[in-house]
């Protein structure tokens, strides 16, 4: 790890950090090395008490004029500094020990520039491979949770490889537009946020850029922050190193608090309900004697303890002018829902080279990834014959899974009505047996960079890359499945296959001219001008085919194709569609930074962007930022203070969001024009019609952000951290603007309204124990984000999409629930009552009675805390995450406490408290029809989804080098770890963390216990 840092920093220090020379005395030379004997180029060797010093060269050598008794301090980022005293010898070597106590990364890396932490004036957090490696998450995003102040990560699906992870940086910055950060991998902006193909073990570090000072340089897509991922590299002049990282583990379903019934409880519930409501319609059912004998745990039928394993083998080596890092990885993640999972194969090769005079530097990264994803379909839908989770979670305990034999018999029983309405789990058992959907993804990331020093101060560079991705999705439903017979049973041939092929290619190229210089030892200026070009092409086609000959059926379903004839064309001819989309952006921008004596710095960025999504008038946007810093600890008056680091930062600037409809890089094109289409057939005649109403005024969503931050380290970084306060305002929000129906549509996308996110973020770590063999670090991250709707240009002062349960009112929070307020069960009638706008109660509230509840599904407080403990090679890491003041609608619970479910599915024991003439203070209304449909528009099912979760726990042992000699290993580390081990929450469902406002029949994220090993040769 250290060696790979070297390369990055060599470039940096060689270019920028030209410290002073010259002093009388003898010539002392030395080599600065790592513990492993690798030379450290670019380390700074300073004479203590002066500003004199030098940097080591490529071989780690330095030469200084020194006197005996002089003290030199050798500093290199990522290592503990050492101070040496000059003796009689003219040779003074230094060995630096890696500093693992650093909480926050030491460099801020973004696509365009790499700045030392000290000289960075922006709000950014870096996480290194140490945090990411070996974690049993299929996506590295899940690993970031709780690590970065202000970064809220909510994973909405336990499907391995799902991209259903919402990443919010500093709150919801948009309503309809994209809210996710921009992702950049090795300088290539990603065309989508699908990371199922990226191997987390290849990641060297991740920088999360937060304030405008950091993100304005990304202009058009920087509005929601930027996440920059850098993959691993080898260093020059290094011996071959081989490393293996392996993890095996098992995942299982998390607990729930729905208090669901077993058969006995269900039976007595029905008896009691029947007695209370003998004439209910539909009638309250009763269990048969046979049903009373069954007690099925349906989660066991559909869910499993899922195995996962991941293996990464990497090779790194470097010669004088060339270094290479190659890794191959294989992973297999089973999903906790049976028949789901992700298999992944990764190959990565990073090659770096330089000329002997260091003027020319180049690098290439090639990453080829293939993944196969077995997916559950119809998740979150209400299809009782389609959504497996309705079988796993909602099925009644008194249904016997052994009643299922095959699809045909199940269908007969359904059609005969010999089974009642509770066939759901059996239909889903059949679907699990006969349906599959597999998505194969190939993702190729290729990028090359080259830079050439025209003069000592001027460097020309280019970084170009391609993100190429193909997706092949194949879904099949077997010819003899229940669903096939249900839908197509009257045809001669059954079996269906749907097939989607998509390819997307995004080319990006960035050319830069950078200038660096230092005058009089104290003035350092860096500047760059850039041109950026991005162009993408997407093509997609799909085919749907019904009718296959069972003799030739194969599981992936492309064989046995029944050829349609003239008379069967309507039944067996496949339907197909095609799609083509282009997208592009163009930008030019400049950046300059100035440092005075490592004490003061300013950084200025200006950027012009053009997006393909807007008209000529609105196409270009200008974004800018100014940031400054004061490194207080480098001031004279701080010389003897306890602070080894104290830096005050400030920034202000703008960024833009051009992803209007949250469609990613592609889509939402030409919304500014009236568009026509062929189609809309009536009586088989091909019509012509308008397919898009124009909004020529569509423009950039503008984010203005101010940030003040403080970075500190005291007692030689024993206590360290950062604090940021920000105010982020989004103007020209994209909202669905409701228009009068006379326009031929009821809504169009439009820019109007403003919102703001204000917050505080803190990240602190402290070494409670810091000894050679023992170290205990406590850390905490926290973020408070208060969002507020500032402006809604309507007479009412609020905006509400009538199809949603939430809206936006001036002064209120974003996504604020706008519902009826439940007033209680009327003790005399058993009906639900709701408050009216005048404070009275009613059984039939109208829209006027809706209230702003001040609650939202976006958390106000979130973050993490944890500890790192090491002792004689043993280590323990614990990491808790939390989110507070977050509310969601529990749609699952609605069905667990609903009379239409009686006799169909399982219900909660809570529901036993229903109203009867003798139970008048009941929690739930009467069972025989009521106005309970209104509860769906009320806060009755709004649930506090705050949680504290033991997100990660790891225990392991790091073998000492000397103990490994006999094995000829250079490193060995073994550990056991757990993810999502326990959650404290009021949320009843399987997963408090979901990113949705409504949750129904979803794939919950699992808890995982795993074991890992890292071996270095």
């Amino acid at each position: 790890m250290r060696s790979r840092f070297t390369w990055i920093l060599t470039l940096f220090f060689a270019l920028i950090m030209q410290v002073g020379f010259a002093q009388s005395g003898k010539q002392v030379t030395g080599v600065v090395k790592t513990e492993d004997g690798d030379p450290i180029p670019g380390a700074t060797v300073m004479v203590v008490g002066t500003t004199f010093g030098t940097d080591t060269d490529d071989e780690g050598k330095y030469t200084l004029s020194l006197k005996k008794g002089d003290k030199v301090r050798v500093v290199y980022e990522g290592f503990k500094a050492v101070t040496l005293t000059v003796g009689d010898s003219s040779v003074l070597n230094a060995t630096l020990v890696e500093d693992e106590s650093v909480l926050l990364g030491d460099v801020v890396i973004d696509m365009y520039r790499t700045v030392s932490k000290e000289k960075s004036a922006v709000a950014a957090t870096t996480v290194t491979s140490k945090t990411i490696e070996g974690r049993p998450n299929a996506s590295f995003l899940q690993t970031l949770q709780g690590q970065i102040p202000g970064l809220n990560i909510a994973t909405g699906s336990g499907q391995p490889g799902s991209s259903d992870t919402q990443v919010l940086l500093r709150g919801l910055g948009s309503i309809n537009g994209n809210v996710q950060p921009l992702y950049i991998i090795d300088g290539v902006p990603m065309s989508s946020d699908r990371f199922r193909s990226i191997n987390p073990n290849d990641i060297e570090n991740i920088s999360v850029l937060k304030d405008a000072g950091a993100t304005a340089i990304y202009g058009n897509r920087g509005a929601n922050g930027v996440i920059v991922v850098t993959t691993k590299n080898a260093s020059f002049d290094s011996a071959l190193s081989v490393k293996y990282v392996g993890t095996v583990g098992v995942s299982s379903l998390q607990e729930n608090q729905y208090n669901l019934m077993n058969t006995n409880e269900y039976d007595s519930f029905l008896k009691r309900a029947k007695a209370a409501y003998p004439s209910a319609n539909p009638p309250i059912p009763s269990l048969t004697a046979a049903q009373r004998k069954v007690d099925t745990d349906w989660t066991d039928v559909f869910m499993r303890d899922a195995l996962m394993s991941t293996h990464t083998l990497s090779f790194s080596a470097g010669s004088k002018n060339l270094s290479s890092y190659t890794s191959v990885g294989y992973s297999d993640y089973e999903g906790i829902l049976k028949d789901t999972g992700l298999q992944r194969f990764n190959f990565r090769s990073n090659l770096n080279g330089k000329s002997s005079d260091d003027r020319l530097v180049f690098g290439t990264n090639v990453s080829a990834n293939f993944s196969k994803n077995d997916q559950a379909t119809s998740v979150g839908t209400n299809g009782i014959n389609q959504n497996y989770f309705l079988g796993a979670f909602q099925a009644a305990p008194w249904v016997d899974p052994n009643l299922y034999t095959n699809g045909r018999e199940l269908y007969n029983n359904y059609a005969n009505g010999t089974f009642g309405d509770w066939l759901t789990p059996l239909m889903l058992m059949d679907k699990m047996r006969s349906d599959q959907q597999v998505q194969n993804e190939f993702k190729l990331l290729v990028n090359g960079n080259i830079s050439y020093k025209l003069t000592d101060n001027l460097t020309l560079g280019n970084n170009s890359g391609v993100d190429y991705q193909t997706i092949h999705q194949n879904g099949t439903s077997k010819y003899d499945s229940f669903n096939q017979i249900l839908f197509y049973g009257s045809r001669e041939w059954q079996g269906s296959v749907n097939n989607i092929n998509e390819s997307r290619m995004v080319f990006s190229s960035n050319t830069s001219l950078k200038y660096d210089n230092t005058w009089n030892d104290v003035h350092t200026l860096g500047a760059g001008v850039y041109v950026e070009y991005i162009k993408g092409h997407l093509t997609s086609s799909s085919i749907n085919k019904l009718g296959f000959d069972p003799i030739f059926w194969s599981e992936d379903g492309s064989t046995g194709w029944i050829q349609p004839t003239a008379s069967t064309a309507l039944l067996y001819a496949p339907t197909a569609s095609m799609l083509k989309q282009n997208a592009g952006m163009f930008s030019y921008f400049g950046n300059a930074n100035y440092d005075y004596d490592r004490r003061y710095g300013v950084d200025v960025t200006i950027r012009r962007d053009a997006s393909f999504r807007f008209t000529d008038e609105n196409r270009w946007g200008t974004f800018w930022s100014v940031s400054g810093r004061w490194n207080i600890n480098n001031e004279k008056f701080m010389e003897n203070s306890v602070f080894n680091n104290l830096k005050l930062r400030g920034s202000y600037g703008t960024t833009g969001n051009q992803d209007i409809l949250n469609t990613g890089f592609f889509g939402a094109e030409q919304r500014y024009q009236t568009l026509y289409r062929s189609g809309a057939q009536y009586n088989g005649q091909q019509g012509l019609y308008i397919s898009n109403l124009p909004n020529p005024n569509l423009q950039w969503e503008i984010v203005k952000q101010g940030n003040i931050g403080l970075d500190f380290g005291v007692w030689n970084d024993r206590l360290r951290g950062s604090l940021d306060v920000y105010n982020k305002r989004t103007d020209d929000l994209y909202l669905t603007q409701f228009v009068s129906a006379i326009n031929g549509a009821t809504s169009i996308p439009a820019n109007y309204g403003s919102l703001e996110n204000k917050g505080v973020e803190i990240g602190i770590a402290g070494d409670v124990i810091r000894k050679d063999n023992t170290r205990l670090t406590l850390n905490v991250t926290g973020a408070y984000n208060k969002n507020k709707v500032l402006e809604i240009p309507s007479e009412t002062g609020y905006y509400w999409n009538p199809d949603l349960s939430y809206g936006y009112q001036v002064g209120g929070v974003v996504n604020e629930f706008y519902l009826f307020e439940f007033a209680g069960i009327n003790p005399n009638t058993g009906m639900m009552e709701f408050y009216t706008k005048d404070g009275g109660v009613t059984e039939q509230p109208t829209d006027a009675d809706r209230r702003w509840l001040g609650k939202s599904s976006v958390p106000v407080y979130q973050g993490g805390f944890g500890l790192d403990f090491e002792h004689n090679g043993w280590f323990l890491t614990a990491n808790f995450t939390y989110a507070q003041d977050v509310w969601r609608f529990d749609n699952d619970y609605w069905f667990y406490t609903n009379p239409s479910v009686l006799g169909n599915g399982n219900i909660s024991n809570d529901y036993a408290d229903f109203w009867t003439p003798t139970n008048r203070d009941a929690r739930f209304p009467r069972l025989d029809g009521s106005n309970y449909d209104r509860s769906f528009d009320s806060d009755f099912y709004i649930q506090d989804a705050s949680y504290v979760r033991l997100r990660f726990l790891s225990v392991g042992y790091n073998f000492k080098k000397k103990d490994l000699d006999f094995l000829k290993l250079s490193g060995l580390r073994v550990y056991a770890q757990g993810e999502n081990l326990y959650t404290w929450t009021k949320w009843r469902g399987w997963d408090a963390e979901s990113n949705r406002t409504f949750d129904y029949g979803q794939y919950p994220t699992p808890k995982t216990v795993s074991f890992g090993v890292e071996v270095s040769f």
Partner: protein
Amino acid sequence: MKKIILTIFVAASFLASCSDAYEVEQPGFVSDEASVFSTPEQVSRGVKALYNVIPAEQEVQFASFYTDELGIGLGNLGQGTNDGSYNFSLISNNEYANSIWANYYNIINRANRIENRVKELLPTASQDEILKYNQSLAEIYALRAFSNLKLFSYFTPDYTNPSGLSVIKFDFLQTDNYTRFEKRATVSEIVAFIEDDIAKAKSLAGETGMENFASGYASNAMLEAILIKLYSMVQTPAAYTELENAFNRLSEIKNLGGANEFLSMFGEGDGTEGIFKYIRVVTDGTGIQSGVANAWYPTNITGQAYMEIGRSLYNELDKLDPALTGKQLHDYKTYSAQQRDSLVTATYSRLDARYGASVFDAGTTKRGSTIVAQNYLGLTPEEYREQDVLRIGKYQGLNATQRPLMNSIWVFRFSDMLLALAEKRAANGNLTGTVALGDYSNVESIIFNLRSHRNTDESLTPVDMPTNFSSPQQAYARILEERRVEFAFEGHRYLDMKRLGVKAGSPGFVRHEKDCLNVCSLEPSSYKLTMPIPRPEMVANPNMVQNTGY
């Protein structure tokens, strides 16, 4: 070396500065109206696309849920109950109201645009083209009148108050001025607007123009039907006079057909009674679950139904043939308890065709067919649910393997117009008198004529006749009853009750006690017989006024 590298960089920057990155042409995008509509054929294709927007399925489904047409089916999983529709819970975000409002205004918006485009094209058109353009214009005005009729009927609280609020008078070109907010026009303004469009359509169609279309399209008969339905709502003496005039013109081209012809209309037939229907073909919709019957059946009409015929409606259908009232459909010989496929040993076919048109009969198999419990009143709720299975049979599917739930939907039939004439007769006090075939001079005779044409023995005599025509109220009640069975599941019941319920002294929509869930009836004076102005319109349009009660 240095030069080579420099050259590469300069070339790279040059390449990267192309404006093609932001001036992105999307393949196949057409934004110019003139290049889409420039020939009579293209204009005609634009007009044909408008038919596709008519929310015919939603109207039928809405009227079934929000009236007393339905009962809870054996396969019900919360349909009708979870959303409150079965309890007549009608709120301002009702999906049917939203759909009806948005779709009919969509049709008018597009119609006005094409009208405007045709007017641009006419000055340079040839004589032959002018004829074709005029036909398209006639069709546009017919569809605009039709859309306004629908909007008027659902959203106007009081048809009979000329200065009362109705809907938006949308007679202008509206493209992208989204800040134009219209007020609701008055009843008399909308009536005049519809009359005007009908007049324009008639004059543009010329002598033969509108006659050339089949019943799936605008036609002269459809224009008369629009007028008749409009005047039946307005209910003034002048309107009734116009109603009769329109009826007389219609009678020249359409008339009652026989019972078997009537039955064939719910398949593919047009009969002599068909005026306008919404044509559906097997390639419409997005799959096997598409179609009008998907609100009541999951996959096909022999499967377990979400909803079935309500007992109160069934009893009305059952009454039509008094000799068999209360009888089951078939006697089955059952093989065994497990096997419900059974042999029919006796059949009790009703003579009045409207029973057979509405009640699904799968014939030889008990499974998937209607099962009538004769002693249904004495059954427990469970038994009633399982042993009294009344299946909706009006839409038996275009094609069992392709679109089992999809059907063409009748919008205007001659009997609808004839009963509108009966409403005029009732208003004028012409309740009884000469009762004879071809005599439409009084209410009783009109019903006699209708029933005569519904007798499946084709004898042109009624199977049975109601007797009480003693007062206008009684006559209205008879008309309302007749409409209930004649137009069951055709989307009429809701508006019929709104128009006639109070006059007929009707208790409104009444579920049979066996079907009653919680709220069992809705009185005819309820505000819920006028649809709410949809929420999106209320949110968008500051000049819009909501109907009372929502």
